[in-house]
């Protein structure tokens, strides 16, 4: 029994060794050309151009160049903007105050216009006369819930992580 097991183990090792040493066969010369003659390369289109730009940017050297360019542009911009801001602080403060005043005035005006419309159009009376009891109340709640759920599903679909062919290639930089 032990003798057989030893013999099997020895044979198994021989088999594995022999398998790992098997030569790999190669097709004849020009194989790649024959394959390429039958392959349809993607035609230029917005999708292909987008992928091309993405693939270009995904290469480490290009990604590094892009990142460096971006950082340099940000530094140069800050080198100009920060001294300018410091030199014009009072003017900037005055402008910000003026813009905030205009914005709050516009908001107040908008609210007043809305209130006038509600009063003059009779919408307030209609809302008051609306009976939201029993079945109607449940209907309204259900419609609102469904609406919210639909919006949430749509938002989830829109923001979900891309999968499959749209997954960007992750490159170690």
């Amino acid at each position, binding site marked *: 029994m032990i003798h057989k097991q030893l*013999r*099997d183990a020895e*044979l*198994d090792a*021989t*088999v*594995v060794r*022999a*398998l*790992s*040493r*098997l*030569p*790999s*066969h*190669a*097709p*004849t010369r020009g*194989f*790649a050309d*024959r*394959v*390429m003659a*039958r*392959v*349809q*390369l*993607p*035609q*230029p289109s917005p999708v*292909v151009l987008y*992928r*091309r*730009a*993405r*693939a*270009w940017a*995904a*290469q480490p050297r290009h990604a590094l160049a892009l990142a460096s360019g971006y950082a340099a542009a940000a530094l140069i911009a800050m080198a100009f903007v920060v001294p300018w801001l410091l030199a014009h602080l009072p003017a900037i403060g005055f402008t910000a105050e003026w813009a905030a005043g205009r914005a709050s005035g516009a908001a107040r005006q908008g609210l007043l216009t809305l209130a006038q419309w509600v009063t003059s159009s009779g919408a307030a009376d209609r809302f008051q006369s609306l009976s939201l009891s029993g079945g109607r109340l449940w209907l309204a709640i259900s419609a609102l819930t469904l609406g919210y759920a639909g919006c949430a599903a749509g938002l989830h679909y829109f923001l979900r992580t891309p*999968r*499959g*062919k749209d*997954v960007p*290639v*992750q*490159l170690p930089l």
Partner: protein
Amino acid sequence: MPTAKDLQSLSDQEVVALARAGAESAYRELVRRYERPVFSLIYRMVRDHALAEDLAQDAFVKVLNALDSYRAEYKFSSWIFKIANNVAIDQLRRRELDTLSLDGSPDARTQEQIEATALQATDRAETPLAELEARELGAAIEEAIAKLRPEYRSCIMLRHVEGRSYEEIAEALDLPLGTVKTYIHRARHELREYLAHLRG
């Protein structure tokens, strides 16, 4: 577009991304990387060089024309081996190639071709010990592989010749992990038996 030298340092996924962006050099790089393993796998399945070359070509054309449907979360090698294996299995089924046949390749036309492609160890009882001694172990293994069932053959080739993991083989061949392990275990058992028999 990147040169062939640039492409060599990139991963499969990166090369695929470039190919999908229309870079012909990326297509060629994929062929260069996988022509030998794919051809070897198919060749050991069908045991006919010309047929294996046609099938390997078909496999590559299918893969490269369908790069858009490739899902990046899977290994590219699994995908290409899956298609290559399917192409070979389809061919075996279509031609009803009896993989246990000792009558040589089905594509052999002349007597010389039949003899050249026929398995030599046709009759185990009559195989002399001297024959084994005269042969390379590799040749004996090649013959033994040819006798395996196609599904065992794909598994053992991918595992021990191509060095793929069990998980990758399961993914490539659409088989449960346990089945892959069983197939490999049985294939090794059959190869062992074959070698033991040759040794007498």
